[in-house]
């Protein structure tokens, strides 16, 4: 059964077996503002934890999206090419950004569950 974890970089990763799906949280999309372009720059590459994997561009600026865990980047959300605003409208579901095969599932222990992430959000607001 799939479980979702959250990073201090405001990313979420939903893990089903060895496969993780990664996106940004509602808080992150709100901070970035209107997203106009998304590019996964490390497709089919091995990445370390906290390595930049994608770039999300809002009207105003470009922001890096980091991998919450180490793994192989196996796919990008092709629908974002024509509808990048899906990240604003539905960040936790259809607005996912990339999929990866996890190298080391124990790294998930360093991430937060939803309750901890909400506490984390309260602490930085």
């Amino acid at each position, binding site marked *: 059964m799939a479980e979702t974890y959250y990073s201090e970089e405001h990313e979420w990763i939903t893990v089903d077996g060895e496969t993780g799906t990664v996106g940004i949280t509602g808080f992150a999309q709100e901070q970035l*503002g*209107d997203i*106009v372009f998304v590019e996964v720059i490390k497709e089919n590459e091995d990445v370390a934890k906290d390595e930049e994997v994608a770039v999300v561009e809002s*009207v105003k*600026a470009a922001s890096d999206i980091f991998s919450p865990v180490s793994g192989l980047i196996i796919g990008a959300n092709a629908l974002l090419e024509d509808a990048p605003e899906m990240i604003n409208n539905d960040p936790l579901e259809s607005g996912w950004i990339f999929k990866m095969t996890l190298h080391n599932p124990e790294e998930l222990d360093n991430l937060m569950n939803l309750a901890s992430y909400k506490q984390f959000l309260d602490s930085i607001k």
Partner: protein
Amino acid sequence: MTESKLNLSPINQLHLRSGARMVEFAGYSMPLQYNLGVKAEHIHTRTKAGLFDVSHMGQVRLEGSSVKRELEALVPGDIQSLNAGRMRYTVFLNANGGILDDLIVTDAGDHIFIVVNAACRQKDLQFMRDNLQCDVEELENKALLALQGPMSEMILETIAPGVADLKFMSSGEFSVCGEYCFITRSGYTGEDGFEISMPANMAMEIAETILSHESAELIGLGARDSLRLEAGLCLYGQDLNETITPIEADLGWVIGKRRRQDGGFPGLENITRQLRDGAPTRRVGIRPNGRAPAREGTEIFDLEEKKIGSISSGGFGPTVGAPIAMGYVQNHSIAIGAQVSVLVRGNLLPATIVDLPFITPNYKRA
């Protein structure tokens, strides 16, 4: 600079309670965007009316019997031919013809009113005080609000009767909420609109009165930037600086016809040579062919992968619905319509050199 040291606009409280995300800009705490977000604020301004707080900009009063003639020693514009109430966009120049700042000069009848960029205010004041005999007075207790967009006239006419009669680039004094304000029909969005200079202690009431109209919304600096970029207008510090001449900036029209013949402005030699022989670089519009924006600093290459220039302002144009940019390219190597490449994150992406602006301006000229 810590936040507590930042200058605050006279309507700072209005920004805070309107959900503004505040950022530091030229020593001021200013609104980047409100709850609508940059894209919706941009579209709102193009379709209805947007209220911008530009109180951080420098408002200066010049007074003296020969002020217009004196000012012409610093700018290439024909200032002496300005009629009362009329205004002109011009630039302060250095001895090489480089642009020290861009500004608006208005003949306010008994004095000259100028508006300069916030980041250049101190430099400009020093420059004027060093070079002008006339009185140079910074108007420190004034706010400046801009109301921009197709519904601006209808909204402002209900608050300041008579403004509808102003033509583009003209000005007048109008009673607003019981106080005389200096209103110009101008702006920096490519839309019809007004700028209202007012006593700082009236700014809250006037802003709230304008916003009480259902078609008016507060608009932040984020949308101000995308609006001016679509309109092909330069941002000082990005598209203009002290190493760029008006000819290179494709602002040759700021040099008055009489001034071209009579000279008498800084950088005359260099500018005359560029007018005769062409300038080494030129400001152009750039449209990335794909969807990836090309930001400030992005390098531009020709199809032989030779570097020909770089982008000075770039982003996404909400009205255009695509990435847009302007930048400087080598003059001899490029023509409108030419295919080029822009280097974004290590990849050469196809782009096209285009004419500016990206939208058709809606100025009230007639």
